[in-house]
């Protein structure tokens, strides 16, 4: 794999490739939808464009209020996701840190685990 003369680093080129992949997905989907638009019929009608509600006329708004039961789970998720962000770099360097790193991360995970146990005991992990 040769790096070109432009001086763009391998690292940035990787991200450029990722960009190409994203664009490729959009282009592919767009191309297929375009081909489909050439052959598919289009006969819109009021009945056809109604919101589907098992065959009866829709009642009220589609954006109806519904109880979001897991906002506590979302909060817990943020806590643990941040934990994961910290653990990953630590995990790659564990060999270097040895016992010191082990104890440090043990304390860190223990504190977070306390949080989970607290939430558990409080009963928020139940579906209410």
């Amino acid at each position, binding site marked *: *794999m*040769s790096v*070109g003369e432009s001086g763009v680093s391998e*690292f940035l080129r*990787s991200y450029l*490739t*990722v960009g*190409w*992949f*994203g664009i*490729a*997905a959009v282009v*592919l*989907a*767009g191309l297929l*939808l375009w*081909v*489909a638009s050439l*052959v*598919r*019929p*289009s006969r*819109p009608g*009021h009945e*056809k*464009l*109604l*919101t*589907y*509600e098992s065959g009866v006329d*829709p009642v009220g708004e*589609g*954006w*109806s209020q*519904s109880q*979001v*039961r*897991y906002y506590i*789970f*979302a909060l*817990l*998720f943020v806590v*643990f*996701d941040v934990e*994961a962000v910290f*653990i*990953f770099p630590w*995990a*790659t*360097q*564990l*060999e270097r840190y*040895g*016992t010191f790193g082990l104890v440090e991360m*043990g304390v860190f*995970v223990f504190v977070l685990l306390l949080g*989970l146990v607290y939430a*558990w005991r409080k009963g928020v*992990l139940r*579906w209410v």
Partner: protein
Amino acid sequence: MMSVLAVEVPYWGQSLLRVLGGIVAVLLPAGTIVYVFLFKMMSFMQSRLGPMEAGPYGSLQLVAEVGKWLQKEDIIPERADARIFKMAPVVVLVSTFLLIAVVPFGPDAWFTNFEVGIFYALAVSSLSVLGILMAGWASANKYSLLGGLRAAGQLIAYELPMVLAVIGVVIQAGTMNLQQIVVAQNSGSIFGFDGLGNPYILTQFVGFVVFMIAIQAELTQAPFDMPIAESELVSGYMTEYSGFRFLIFFIGEFATAGVFSLLTSVLFLGGWGVPFAWFGWSDVDSVANWMNVAGPIIMITKMMLIAFIIMWVRFSSPRFREDQLQRFAWKVLIPVSLGNIALTSIFKVVM
């Protein structure tokens, strides 16, 4: 990738080849999984033959299906938020394409070689939930909204066990680079025995099981298919979709299944490699060139194995209830995977 061709390819040519390779690497596993497992295996498990008319043993059924979907009218409900409604399937497909970009297929056959490959993969894989939420919200349909919200809750809950299960692998390999994780497995040894290398399915079995359960939920396959749940929500967030937009969701679903199977085989089954001790290789530079050809074949084989397990579970399990789903993630999988991390790190430091 380029050294196989033994000619100097300009950068734009390399990029083009990569993108074409990426499209093949997304669509080929998706098509294979749909035909072999969804059409044929599911039929055999239900004592029927499945598609038999189009081509020998119905092998051209996929082509027929795509042709059929192309002709279907594209219906966008009056009440729907049309712009978001149209964007949602593309977002799901983009997330799949971004995910395939890190999977290595051979010593030189990779698309990108990120130092933090697995971290990137985990980050990008959660993009698809955006597309699903967009679809659920923009449809302005009660079923879709419920399906989208369920999907968000489920993907959030199972993201954590997945990430935590991967940490065990990262501790063992000492790197987040997927290529080096493959090398570490194939050049490794278990208690001095190197005839098998050290595929992490053997030394990280708990992590493997947790990861498999988590990806089953991330892919919203039964028993974790509440976001779609035909008997409760019609078709969940896809209720209002028809024609080709629905097909893009469908392709995205099975392509993601393929990519996650590829990732699992990289993380736990040794990826593209064979145990290096067989041929006396030591690191990635000493690997023979023919592995660039053999690697993708090995990867596809392992992908089919993993996808087989995913589909097998899908076809034979009833659906969980929503509260059971959350309880299982938070009270079983997360403690288990944290324990796995603790054990792995103690072993790594002590031994």
